């Protein structure tokens, strides 16, 4: 049992990977079911919940294959990974339940398992090159998911996404090569002292290249345009995955890289703050003038990741924790909003232009309630979880001395109120009541029920959740 615990990080990557052949072999004849994929997630979540106690005690550090870092690859399972992986597991499970098209469902689930494995690896790894491999697995799965809608917009979006993503990947590769050249190690744990001892501009430039690559992947200014394109070209389920799972995984990796290089983070703080502030402003202002639901949500994501980055760049432990907390909450609520968007399609309306969106007759009240709750959470209106996470972000950012940033976050909520209200009014009083042909009515309850319920329920425990995040960040910073 003890050896199973120390091997837990590897298992958390390998079990979803094993899900790929499992899915294949269980469904070779006839059409597949969602059961194997759900079983994989269930196993992972069970493992996670049984090991929270051990992770609370101390991070579980594993040397993959029995080779200590520098010789082999180190993996670390800590509270940061637990928190993020619980959130991504929830979103992946929702996505499996949400995907009800029979054609290509098997392909979709396979990609989902690969995305799950890749994002778990990203959040666990302590080795820079291993992180690169998992970045590529996660990214290729994301590109493929965007393209899997198999239509004009899908391919175009996927190509743009691949171009931006590959460029970011190459930046990361260059950065890893430069760091290895100057510090002689790929292990994040032992990077800091060697990084500080290294001379010249190369180490700092290499680390900056890695961070820049991750910021491109997160869609921060000035590389934010692809995000709206790729999210609006994908189906709603895929958009939910991209804004929930992929973003969270990259953010966790960014946190790990930043905390592995404390001296660099300190000197880069003004740059990161500027990028974050610009992302907040650009994201909200662009969201204000978007004509389509998915593009609006995508630009809002740019702003919200900016909140997280702003809190993280202030450097204070509680502020980093608040930023992490907000990113995790944002992943849940943004993916729920995207899952909610799937219901527009059940009315037979293929477009998601704001003046044309309408919920289907069935369960309309429930849908509208869900939208209102989620929008309140996104804007930051009490009593939902989005309010508390944003409140903490404002409070801690101000406490860390970033008063302008705190004001920006608060003002962002005011702008968000305008555009979410615009969508809300349209949904309550549809402008186009007569639709040419009502689409296939969905008999299922809307998937985002789970996410919304979570946002309502967890709001009660928000101070405890923040304390958990603080503990996670303390663990992260102590490990270095």
């Amino acid at each position, binding site marked *: 049992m003890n050896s199973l615990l120390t091997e837990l990080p590897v298992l958390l990557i390998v079990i979803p990977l094993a899900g790929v052949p499992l899915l294949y072999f269980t469904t070779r004849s006839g059409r597949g079911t969602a059961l194997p994929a759900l079983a994989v997630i269930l196993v992972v979540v069970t493992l996670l919940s049984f090991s929270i106690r051990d992770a609370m005690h101390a991070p579980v550090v594993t040397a993959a294959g029995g080779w200590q870092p520098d010789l082999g690859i180190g993996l670390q399972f800590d509270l940061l990974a637990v928190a993020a992986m619980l959130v991504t597991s929830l979103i992946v499970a929702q996505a499996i339940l949400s995907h009800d098209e029979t054609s290509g469902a098997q392909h979709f689930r396979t990609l989902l398992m690969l995305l799950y494995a890749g994002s778990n690896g990203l959040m666990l790894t302590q080795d820079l*090159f291993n992180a*690169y*491999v998992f970045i*590529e697995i996660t990214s*290729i799965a994301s*590109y*493929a998911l965007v*393209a899997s809608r198999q*239509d*004009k917009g899908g*391919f*175009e979006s*996927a*190509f*743009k996404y*691949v*171009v931006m993503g*590959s*460029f970011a*990947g*190459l930046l990361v*590769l*260059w950065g*890893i*090569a430069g760091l*290895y*050249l100057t510090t002689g190690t790929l292990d994040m744990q032992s990077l800091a002292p060697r990084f500080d001892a290294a001379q010249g501009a190369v180490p700092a430039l290499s680390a900056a290249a890695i961070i820049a690559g991750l910021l491109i992947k997160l869609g921060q200014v000035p590389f934010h*345009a692809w995000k709206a*394109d790729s999210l609006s070209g994908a189906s709603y389920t895929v958009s939910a995955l991209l804004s929930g799972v992929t973003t969270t995984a990259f953010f966790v990796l960014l946190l790990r890289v930043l905390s592995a290089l404390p001296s660099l983070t300190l000197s880069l703080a003004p740059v990161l703050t500027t990028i974050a502030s610009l992302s907040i402003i650009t994201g909200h202002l662009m969201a204000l003038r978007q004509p389509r639901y998915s593009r609006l949500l995508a630009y809002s994501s740019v702003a919200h990741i900016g909140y997280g980055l702003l809190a993280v760049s202030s450097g204070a432990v509680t502020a980093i924790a608040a930023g992490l907390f907000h990113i995790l909450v944002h992943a849940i609520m943004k993916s729920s909003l995207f899952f909610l968007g799937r219901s527009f399609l059940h009315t037979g309306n293929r477009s998601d232009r704001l003046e044309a969106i309408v919920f289907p007759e069935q369960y309309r009240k429930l849908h509208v309630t869900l939208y209102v709750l989620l929008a309140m959470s996104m804007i930051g209106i009490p009593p939902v979880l989005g309010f508390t996470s944003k409140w903490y972000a404002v409070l801690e950012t101000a406490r860390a001395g970033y008063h302008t940033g705190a004001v920006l976050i608060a003002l962002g909520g005011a702008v968000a109120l305008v555009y979410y209200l615009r969508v809300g009014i349209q949904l309550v009083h549809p402008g186009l009541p007569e639709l040419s042909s009502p689409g296939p009515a969905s008999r299922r309850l809307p998937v985002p029920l789970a996410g919304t319920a979570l946002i309502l329920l967890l709001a009660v425990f928000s101070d405890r959740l923040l304390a958990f995040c603080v503990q996670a960040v303390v663990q992260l910073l102590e490990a270095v």
Partner: protein
Amino acid sequence: MIVLTIGITCIVLTGIGIYGLLRRTHMIRMVLCFNILEAAALLGLVLIAYRPDARSPILRAATDVHVLPLPHALALTAIVIGASLTALMLTLIVRVHRSHGTVLVDKLKDWRG
């Protein structure tokens, strides 16, 4: 001397690749530019491993000095991942061409905007 020459070549190749990526609008040529960029990174990785007067990492005698094998392994992984990405990009290009009838990115809707 060898190290400096190849190091500068890496940087020049990166410059050429980025130039091509910014200037060229034919999608297949953009993928070619990605391959140039990736080749520059591979050359850089192998260069990191290089030591003058060292032997290749195929071990013969215990007393030999060998070049670092780790960057070679990283380069191999990067080559395979790069080839996969190239295949994926080319498939997408073929599909974009099918649906849009063009292979020029500036003819796609709101490209770079």
